[in-house]
């Protein structure tokens, strides 16, 4: 009996700490986010380090290099998963067409620089705009009719899968039509003309305000990797700021609580849905353009990261926006640690194993609220 009492007290104190933390994160979202990122990054430094160091340390495999790789990967996954988590937290639906939107953004950026011969600066805004518009289109075609008749959530999942397959294969045909090849690269000389986008030229030294921090690195850093990480952080802070402080963010939170109540309060619910899908699509488009510049653009580039993004939001908590970033760090760590230990062929298996185990142990995710809709 005594132990039972103890465990109850313990649980109550944990709950109280959590509530206080929640109040604090809501009051100071930016500081909380920076803290979350710093903590995750520190964790990210030590996991691959501890995993790789005792086994071997070669010139290709050192902790600093792993850390840089992990940060870039975490940035890429966060950019992608923020949109996923945004749609899920406002509308409570899983948009499996998010990977297709990501691909569409990259495709738009590539098309405007390679085919229309515009400078590379236009690629990112074009990708974000295209991603946002296609996000709204997916909402109108795949989700709006189902929402109108109050269909179950699984129907929305199925329709988003349908939209995803349709978009990916349409893009394949368009790729063949526009570039005569299913996979294409951004023109290298254009990409390398901007320092922040350089995807093929590594940084030799790091300077901040004319002050040389590190010279002659014994590891490789590409400017693109840094850019991806920085963009992801900026996006997270922007999104948290919008939701916490702007008028439209307040309206979003009301819609997330209950769309009918929001309607009664005079909020234009369909506008809020459109804004949510636009933001989510724009983030996916930015991720697609940046990753496309770093690697290649192809119609199937979204399917791989789509499933990883799903894992990321399940790990972090599907209704939690900082959770998407925490989840990205965890997945990036797991992958880099697996690769560092020499099992790069298990890179995908680790991700899906984490997804599977997380759903079995704690379906609401690390930062999520307990689920009410379980059988």
């Amino acid at each position, binding site marked *: 009996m005594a132990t039972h009492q103890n465990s109850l007290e313990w649980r109550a104190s944990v709950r109280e700490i959590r509530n206080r933390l929640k109040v604090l994160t809501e009051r100071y979202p930016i500081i909380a986010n920076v803290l979350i990122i710093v903590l995750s990054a520190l964790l990210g430094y030590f996991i691959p380090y501890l995993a790789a160091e005792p086994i071997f340390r070669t010139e290709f495999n050192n902790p600093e290099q792993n850390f840089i790789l992990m940060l870039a990967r975490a940035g890429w996954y966060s950019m992608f998963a923020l949109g996923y988590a945004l749609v899920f937290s406002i509308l409570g639906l*899983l948009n499996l067409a998010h990977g297709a939107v990501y691909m569409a953004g990259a495709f738009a950026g590539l098309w405007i620089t390679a085919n229309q011969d515009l400078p590379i600066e236009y690629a990112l805004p074009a990708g974000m705009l295209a991603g946002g518009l296609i996000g709204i289109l997916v909402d109108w*075609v*795949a989700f709006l*009719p*189902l929402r109108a008749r109050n*269909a*179950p*959530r*699984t*129907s929305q*999942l*199925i*329709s988003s*899968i*349908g*939209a*995803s*397959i*349709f*978009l*990916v*294969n*349409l893009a*394949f*045909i*368009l790729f*063949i*039509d526009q570039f005569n090849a299913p996979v294409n690269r951004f023109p290298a000389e254009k990409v390398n003309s901007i320092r922040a986008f350089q995807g093929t030229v590594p940084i030799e030294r790091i300077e901040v305000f004319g002050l040389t921090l590190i010279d002659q690195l014994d590891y490789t850093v590409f400017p693109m990797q840094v850019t991806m990480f920085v963009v992801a952080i900026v996006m997270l802070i922007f999104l948290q700021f919008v939701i916490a402080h702007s008028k439209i963010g307040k309206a979003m939170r009301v819609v997330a609580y209950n769309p009918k109540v929001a309607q009664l309060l005079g909020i234009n619910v369909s506008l809020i849905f459109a804004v949510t899908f636009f933001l989510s699509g724009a983030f996916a488009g930015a991720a697609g353009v940046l990753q496309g510049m770093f690697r290649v653009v192809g119609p199937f580039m979204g*399917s791989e990261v789509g*499933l990883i993004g*799903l*894992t990321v939001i*399940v790990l972090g908590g599907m209704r939690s926006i900082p959770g998407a970033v925490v989840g990205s760090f965890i997945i990036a760590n797991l992958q880099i640690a697996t690769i560092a230990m020499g099992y790069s*062929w*298990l890179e*995908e*298996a680790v991700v*899906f*194993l984490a*997804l*599977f185990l997380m*759903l*079995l142990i704690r*379906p609401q995710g690390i930062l999520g609220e307990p*689920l009410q*809709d*379980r*059988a």
Partner: protein
Amino acid sequence: MEFIFDLLTPYGITENTFQNMLIAAILGISIYITLYAGLFSLANAGFMATGAYVSVILTTRYEWDFLLAVGAGIIAAGLISAIISVPVLRLSDIYLAIATIGFGEILVVLLRNFDRIYELIVNKEETITGGATGIKGIPVITTTEYLLLYLGIVVFLMVRLHRSRFGRALVAIRQDNKVAANMGINVVYYQNMAFILGAMIAGGAGALHGHLNRIILPENYGFDRAVDILTFAVLGGTTTIIGPIVGGFIIAYLPEILRRTDLVGLLGDIFGTDLGRYQANVRDMTVGMILLGVIVFLPQGIASPAMWRRVANRIWNLFNPAEKSDA
């Protein structure tokens, strides 16, 4: 059999197409049974892979009898589903869908790297699943008769199931699992049994499919296959057993429909390119459109008796206006 194909070949249904249609119908039934129990599971492609790999390895490496190997494939799929069903079925709704997607992907990665894992554990290099290149040179043993027989058995089981205590319990659970539990139905037991039954049906379909095409690859059984299987059930509808069979038939016949209506050429004209080499993508695009269109406009599927009754009534009323005023 010959006379059937003499009748069907003018419509583009060759023996090979017909076999694919039968496999699709069986897979449709395998997801139908889980949906019938109110479970939205996408794991059936994984169970199909289990059945295919187990039976093919048994026939090629250990030279088992074909029917014994198919039986072993069915049992292997059942065992794996029994292992994962208890923890996975604690989830419901989209969480179940995500978990089963994860399971399918893990299985594909494991099949792709099975030899390396085997080497790590046993310290002996051997080619069992052949990694990403798959198993080649499988003898073609599956015939249309086997497939028809298997489909017949499965349909017979399903029809019997609808009228049994088991089937009625599943219907009650699908309607409302809390009410079902209050009526004394063991929800967990019945849902697990439905899940395992669906997995075994899919395992058998996989075993038969493995001995059809001379080669099996891990990629054949990934997320795309899971979506295909889902499409069979969604297109046909899950109100009756006819639904998934019709859905499977239509989707497996789809490439032929596209060729006959020359949609590939039409799209090629629109885009100004020759799409002859990319028929698979046009087919996938159509599947996406079907999935989207059916779920939006025909949520009951195209083989829903209620919808056809309504259509028939409307046509009847069209020709008998007097009858309408009576009612």
